[in-house]
């Protein structure tokens, strides 16, 4: 990727970063749509021999042979038995029955995690710069599980099993399915086994935001990653005949519009079909749009497809306007016609202008790449939000990372829009999603693993979470683009990842396989369900298990409302959480602080001081939350920080009344 290494501070602190040799020992398994091995991002120049412990293979298939692997792509496999059993044999004239990536998504995610350094990367000049993965010396093993018809759980389970056997250290999965209990969730089951073998598993949180409770991949042994923006934008300008200007975004790179204002029309008034405003295929009347710029509403079909519909009807440009469902979130696309995306407010004003002026005119201008955009990051509107739909006491997502307008490697098979009409060939593409933020964290976890090979997956997750930031340099809290207001832990979890700080967290909240099994006991899992989830035979004892005692690096407190407790409205509830911190730094004294002190809840930490004299020393503490009953849906947020003056070990606290 370009820009994200700088945005994440990876160029600033070489002293803390692991050596290229230790980084080269880390293997990232990416379960996705495969790889396009000719991408320069898979160049293996300067990489040492493949780690001797590696048991993976480079499987042969259509247009893919073992010579397509090298010291960067050290493994490539494909899994399609489940897919073919349901949908029939793969049509090899359309899709390669091999690890070769026909889609681009898998090449994008794997190069984001661990692509080699490539100079002069860009998409038609946009986002130009030096592209590299987060762990540019780490190795990539590709497991193709996603095909044109989707990704099937039987194939995913087989791939996860093989990745574990092969010896990956990190598993990156930018996929999600329907929400189900851990014992019936293939990814959760596979991730448990991986975690038990010391493999860090990061998964995308989902793109169903900004609605609440929309997360996927929420098992506590998974690191769940939401998406934020960068300080980079691709501005496009819409100039109206009434003198008003609006700023939107675009990755259009073709011939510009003539330097004069052109007539323009709202698609809803240039169509006789229902939903004509959406510029669906064949919905526009050529006589109404010929030679004009067409305003299309977002939704219904792909954003770039709308431009093609406009072009086919004789239109010369498109303004893509958000409706209420999308608010002010702008997504940059490599349109095939001069086009710009605008937010809802600008869209509403433009539509008012069109309806008020029979000779409404406009033009669109493009101004390339803008850096230093502030505020950044902001939480992407599409990023799925908490609370956790399966276990409310575990706060999810865990953290956010760059996931908007990310440039990374791409397949040579299809153009940037993925449409049949798009015959452009590119080496890099710019796309958005929690699919893009997940491999950022996978690569950053590889850096932490390289620096601290003895750390467990939970310790790595803790390091990434407790060092994440929630405020900008000016002290103001990270914003949510969906509302324009400060985001909450249900939006960003522990905050935005800060990899340099994660390399030296001071303390970690570690957790073992036994701790996670105790967590399942606290959920009242039977021995059968525990076996289904963990593969282990275990019978919960008669001791009192508590979800609140899972040593998680964040806190989610769910109070019951008065009506549920059956007590009066003034009923006071108290919930106690126990945590254990492990010292991974020098001997130090840490002091606890809670900020901001929420008005509705009393939070007490005991003890408030923890002294560590040796590495790996463990100290426990309790946090007691006391609150009056509040109406259902009330929320409150805070943070708990342990600091020795040098390190700040911060956990988000989300409190809800249900």
């Amino acid at each position: 990727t370009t820009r994200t290494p700088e945005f994440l501070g990876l160029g600033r602190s070489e002293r803390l970063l692991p050596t290229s040799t230790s980084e080269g020992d880390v293997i990232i398994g990416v379960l996705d749509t495969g790889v396009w091995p000719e991408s320069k991002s898979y160049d293996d120049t300067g990489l040492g021999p493949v780690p001797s412990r590696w048991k993976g293979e480079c499987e042969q298939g259509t247009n893919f042979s073992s010579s397509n692997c090298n010291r960067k792509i050290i493994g490539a496999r494909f899994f399609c038995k489940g897919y073919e059993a349901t949908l029939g044999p793969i049509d090899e004239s359309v899709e390669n029955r091999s690890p070769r990536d026909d889609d681009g998504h898998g090449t994008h995610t794997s190069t984001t995690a661990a692509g080699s350094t490539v100079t002069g990367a860009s998409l038609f000049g946009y986002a130009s710069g030096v592209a590299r993965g987060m762990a540019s010396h780490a190795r990539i093993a590709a497991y193709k599980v996603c095909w044109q018809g989707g990704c099937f759980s039987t194939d995913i389970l087989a791939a996860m099993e093989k990745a574990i056997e092969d010896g990956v250290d990190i598993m990156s999965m930018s996929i999600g399915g329907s929400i189900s209990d851990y014992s019936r969730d293939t990814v959760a089951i596979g991730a448990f086994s991986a975690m038990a073998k010391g493999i860090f598993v990061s998964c995308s949180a989902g793109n169903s935001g900004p609605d609440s409770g929309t997360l996927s991949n929420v098992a506590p042994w998974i690191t769940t990653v939401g998406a934020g923006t960068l300080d980079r934008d691709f501005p496009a300008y819409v100039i109206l005949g009434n003198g008003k200007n609006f700023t939107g975004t675009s990755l259009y790179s073709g011939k510009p519009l003539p330097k004069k204002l052109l007539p323009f029309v709202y698609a809803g008034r240039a169509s006789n079909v229902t939903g004509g405003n959406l510029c669906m295929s064949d919905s526009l009347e050529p006589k109404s749009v010929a030679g004009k710029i067409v305003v299309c509403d977002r939704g219904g079909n792909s954003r770039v497809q709308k431009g093609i519909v406009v072009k086919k009807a004789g239109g010369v440009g498109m303004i893509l306007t958000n409706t209420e469902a999308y608010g002010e979130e702008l997504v940059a696309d490599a349109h095939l016609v001069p086009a710009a995306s605008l937010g809802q407010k600008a869209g509403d004003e433009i539509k008012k202008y069109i309806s008020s002026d029979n000779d409404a005119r406009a033009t669109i201008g493009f101004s390339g790449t803008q850096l230093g955009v502030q505020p950044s990051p902001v939480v992407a509107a599409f990023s799925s939000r908490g609370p956790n739909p399966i276990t409310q006491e575990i706060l999810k997502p865990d953290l956010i990372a760059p996931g908007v307008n990310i440039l990374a490697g791409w397949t040579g098979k299809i153009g940037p829009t993925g449409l049949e009409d798009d015959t452009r060939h590119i080496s890099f593409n710019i796309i958005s999603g929690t699919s893009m933020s997940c491999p950022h964290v996978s690569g950053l976890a590889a850096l932490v693993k390289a620096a601290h090979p003895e750390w467990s997956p939970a310790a790595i997750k803790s390091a990434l979470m407790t060092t994440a930031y929630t405020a900008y340099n000016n002290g103001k809290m990270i914003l949510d683009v969906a509302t324009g207001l400060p985001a909450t832990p249900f939006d960003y979890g522990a905050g935005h990842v800060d990899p340099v700080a994660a390399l030296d967290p001071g303390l970690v909240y570690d957790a073992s396989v036994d701790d996670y099994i105790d967590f399942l006991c606290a959920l009242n899992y039977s021995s059968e369900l525990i076996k289904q989830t963990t593969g282990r035979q275990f019978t919960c004892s008669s001791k009192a298990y508590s979800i609140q005692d899972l040593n998680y690096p964040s806190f989610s407190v769910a109070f019951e409302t008065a009506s549920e407790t059956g007590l009066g409205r003034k009923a006071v509830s108290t919930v106690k959480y126990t945590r254990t911190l492990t010292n991974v730094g020098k001997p130090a004294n840490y002091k606890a602080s809670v900020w901001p002190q929420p008005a509705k809840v009393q939070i007490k930490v005991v003890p408030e001081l923890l002294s560590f004299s040796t590495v790996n020393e463990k100290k426990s503490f309790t946090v007691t939350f006391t609150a009056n009953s509040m109406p259902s849906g009330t929320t409150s947020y805070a943070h708990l920080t342990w600091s020795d003056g040098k390190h700040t070990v911060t956990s988000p606290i989300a409190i809800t009344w249900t």
Partner: protein
Amino acid sequence: DHQERRTYIVHMDKSHMPESFTDHHEWYHASLKSAVDTAEMLYAYNSIIHGFSTRLTEEEAELLQGQPGILALLPEIRYQLH
């Protein structure tokens, strides 16, 4: 349609494998064949879970579910790229 086949992940409890079997794959095959003679195994899983995946009708799935050593039958789920 009760006759339409769906894909399932059949999760087995290896601790219930009869002593007459020396290889768990043989046991998987025997369990599947005893319930459904015509069903084919897609994958055999050996580490994350013990079990296999196969295509079954609803009736066959119920029959297999009743076999000893079956922990769970998980219907195939289609995941999406994010």
